[in-house]
């Protein structure tokens, strides 16, 4: 009758039921929840698209620029996109409140556009994406990122060479 001990313990300690859904729910800081996308940091390298197993991330070239789309309803919350993103442009938040009525099914998505711009140095049409900081030391300052955003890949390379890159 070991079990009676447990009953007594349960009666003495009271129910262990949490107050949710009538009260707030505890969420751990590392909870892998809804994906968030930070357009200004995206370099358009498409690493996230390549590692996304369920095909929840999609890049399309459109006349206006590079379109980023992400559908929450097929995302498996694995976090590989965040793991392999070189600029932390894609990030997994701790938001898990995602239950929705079925008519919202297709609006559960992220749609962003990295627009085309004309290179501020040579005037060529180019994507206004963030520069890829991998292996660059010291890292780009926010001002430099804004500057590079307006450059085409060739002019970026030139600017980087002028900046000096010890690594």
């Amino acid at each position, binding site marked *: 009758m070991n079990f009676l001990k447990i009953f007594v313990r349960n009666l003495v300690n009271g129910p262990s039921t949490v107050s949710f859904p009538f009260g707030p729910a505890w969420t751990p800081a590392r909870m892998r929840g809804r994906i968030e996308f930070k357009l200004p940091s995206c370099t358009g390298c498409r690493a996230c698209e390549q590692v996304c197993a369920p095909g929840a991330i999609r890049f399309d070239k459109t006349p206006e620029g590079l379109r980023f789309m992400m*559908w929450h309803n097929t995302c498996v919350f694995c976090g590989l996109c965040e793991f392999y993103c070189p600029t932390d442009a894609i990030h997994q938040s701790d938001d898990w409140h995602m239950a929705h009525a079925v008519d919202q099914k*297709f609006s*559960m998505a992220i749609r962003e556009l990295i627009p085309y711009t004309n290179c501020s140095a040579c005037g060529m049409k180019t994507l206004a994406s963030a520069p890829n900081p991998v292996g660059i030391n010291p890292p780009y300052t926010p001002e430099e990122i804004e500057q590079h955003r307006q450059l085409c890949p060739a002019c970026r390379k030139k600017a980087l060479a002028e900046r000096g890159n010890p690594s």
Partner: protein
Amino acid sequence: MSLKPDNIEALLTATALGGVSFRQTTDAKGVCSAWCTLASSSDLLATVALLKTLGARLSTMTVFQPKASPPPPAPKEGEAPPQPLTFFGGVIQDGKSYEIAYHFDLDGDTLTLIVHVASGGQVDSLTPLYRAADWPEREAMELYALVVRAHPNPQRLFLDPSIDNAAFERLIPYSTLTNAGVSKGFWEKIMATTGPKS
């Protein structure tokens, strides 16, 4: 460290009369993996019987169709046309032949016994020797057009009746996904929906 017993290569060579190609590797933690390719698939039963006396446990079997070898350069005039590349044992690498690998466990170490069978060929069933071969062989038969000779219960294992036999032979060589249309439909609907950005 090496596979136990130490003379396993000699034993295998003595049993498989058609010839064997044997190699083994040991990882940093001392776990051994051995690969033994049989030249002739008719040596299979005798070899497996030998392994059984050594206390091997059949872990599973893998069937697949290795890719075809790249086409050889066109022969120069006067030369004989080049022989097509073959696997050890003479089966041609045409992308349709089967490579069948039987993975045995020898007290923690792994011995993989490989046979090659030409497209449309047959292979002996190991089920009479190892009960554990039953399901893998049935699975092999439904996923490939391979015939396992003398299998005691050659029925479907997992596939739904609505799916045709030899599913992998039909599906794997192509790069597209069978249900890719569903994904396409989804993205069209997502693009058509202008919901709140979230």
